[in-house]
């Protein structure tokens, strides 16, 4: 068993860290103020190849794997979980296109999609929730030359920067779910309100409104009536590992902030890093981070291998890592004491951002249900 990153992964980690520190870090304060994703940053990330990290070379991607993707997202989340969140969801769009898109669709959107020149975001969740996909009420009606789609999608990440969305809607004729690619210029398509979140500022989250929206027939995504399984695969293979990676970045940032502050802050004439309660907290953050990292890398590796166990592992990694990130960021706040509540320090941002990771892409409880159901199904 070799736990060492290979040379390419080491270089990837170092390079993305450098990009995050030089290109993203200077924008964080502004994002905290205006809650907007900087378009110039999106362009730069596209040039770097971040969107097409797992896309094949022939479609303009880099041909890297899912473990590489997790390494990359962790480094971005270490500086900005908001940007990691935005990026990882757009990568779901790329991944779904590569896995489900017809060759005509892939050729139409490549290589621009992998290069971030066209942004496609998945839009599954409705007001009834995101996890009960069967309960979705958005409908698509076959009008001969086009599908007429009606419905309202909510909590859609990148809702206001995406050039196109992947909609899951029920075929009125067959009552089965289909996936549809809808471009923002289509008649009847419009982004709705932008949600005012408690964190992840810089990552848009809002509504997509489909009011007699006309999607061309050739925009049916994947096989007719297989949209739901496609959505679940996208969430499982990309969404959960992306969320876990974002949590890793937050924990790494928290650990670094905790150690630095503990070494610099003095109490009774000594640095507080000498105090056992502070050391305990730092040790716990470290242990939770390392456990989460192993789980997440392993989950991504299973996805890469096409293993059937990946569904269980990605769900477990998602809920464990995101919950751990909330515990760790809270401990870092405790170490900072009163300073933790001041916006001059980044730790309160880490804490707010961590809370948002818990519910996104399926709550922890839903993920527990998936893990429990898979494990008990095997036993029975």
């Amino acid at each position, binding site marked *: 068993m070799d736990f060492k990153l290979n040379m390419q992964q080491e270089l990837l980690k170092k390079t993305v860290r450098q990009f995050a520190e030089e290109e993203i870090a200077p924008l964080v304060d502004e994002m905290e103020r205006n809650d907007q994703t900087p378009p110039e940053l999106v362009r730069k990330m596209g040039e770097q*190849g971040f969107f097409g990290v797992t896309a094949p070379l022939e479609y303009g991607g880099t041909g890297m794997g899912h473990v590489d993707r997790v390494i990359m997202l962790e480094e971005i989340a270490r500086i900005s979980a908001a940007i990691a969140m935005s990026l990882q969801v757009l990568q779901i769009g790329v991944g779904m296109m590569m896995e489900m898109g017809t060759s005509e669709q892939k050729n139409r959107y490549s290589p621009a999609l992998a290069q971030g020149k066209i942004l496609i975001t998945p839009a599954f969740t409705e007001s009834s929730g995101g996890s009960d996909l069967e309960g979705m009420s958005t409908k698509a009606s076959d009008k001969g030359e086009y599908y007429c789609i009606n419905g309202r999608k909510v909590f859609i990440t990148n809702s206001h920067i995406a050039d196109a969305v992947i909609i899951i809607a029920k075929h009125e004729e067959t009552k089965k779910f289909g996936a549809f690619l809808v471009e923002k210029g289509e008649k009847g398509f419009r982004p709705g309100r932008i949600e005012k979140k408690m964190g992840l500022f810089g990552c848009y989250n809002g509504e997509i409104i489909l009011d007699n929206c006309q999607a061309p027939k050739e925009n049916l995504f994947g096989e007719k009536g297989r949209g739901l399984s496609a959505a679940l695969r996208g969430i499982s293979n990309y969404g959960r590992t992306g969320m876990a990676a974002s949590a890793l970045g937050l924990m790494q940032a928290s650990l670094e902030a905790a150690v630095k502050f503990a070494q610099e802050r003095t109490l009774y004439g000594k640095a507080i890093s000498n105090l056992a309660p502070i050391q305990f907290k730092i040790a716990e953050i470290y242990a939770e981070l390392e456990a989460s990292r192993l789980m997440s890398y392993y989950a991504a590796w299973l996805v890469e291998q096409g293993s059937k166990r990946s569904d269980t592992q990605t769900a477990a990694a998602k809920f464990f890592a995101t919950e751990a990130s909330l515990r760790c960021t809270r401990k870092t706040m405790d170490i900072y004491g009163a300073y933790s509540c001041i916006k001059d320090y980044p730790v309160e941002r880490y804490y707010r951002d961590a809370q948002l990771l818990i519910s996104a892409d399926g709550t922890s409880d839903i993920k527990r249900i998936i893990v429990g159901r898979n494990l008990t199904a095997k036993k029975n």
Partner: protein
Amino acid sequence: MHVAVCVKMVPAPGQWSRIVFRDDGSLQREGIELIINPVDRNALEEALKIRQARGGTVAVFSMGPPSCLEHLREALAMGADRAFLLSDRNFAGADTLATSRALAAGIKKEMPGFDLVLCGSASIDSGTAQVGPQLAAYLGAAHLTEAFSISVGEQNCFQVRTAGSHGYFVTDLRKPAVISVTKQLNKPRIPTLFDIMASCNKEIIILSSAELSLPKSESGLEGSPTKVRELFFSPARRLARILEGSMEDRVEELLRQPGVAGVLK
């Protein structure tokens, strides 16, 4: 245009508290996170720009243990065509003179028709700024230090701008040349993911002292005239002094302080 770039692996700034010196005064690099000396990246960036404008090749040269290979991979990801690591036990403990001699031998062997050698003006660990000029001497090339602008002239020369105390100098430098550069020269690129993938197919060649025909007496510690007699920390102290008297007296006294007069001149 064939450009050689010399890069040095130095401890990352956050690692300085972990630096340990051996009994002979040399720095123990094992177990310390290393990076490419920051200003050497500017040298590489300039070489890549020159290649983009004029064609040719860019080769990177470094001296160090095999752990430096991963950093040379980074240089390849930035866009260098080839990389050479001078790595051999005989090279260990080299001072700037022995390092320059070895690098010059490597460049002569692997890039005999070079037009330009670029290196950073100084390293962040030892900061002697000696390798560039010594390298030029060994290569028999013209040289300039502290360049903040380089343009390739039409008539076999480089037009180089270097900082002076009251402005800057513009110098035409004939090929082949060695130029030490400053951070003001450019902003080094960050490799893309595509560059990283491409770098994995590029070769890094390890050169030994024997391959460079360098005898042990001219390599490493044995070939180094510099001997470290003593190492000590020189703590920086801040001086706080309240000046007394009238405003005129205080200003006069202030201007007499070392350094202040120069600043206000």
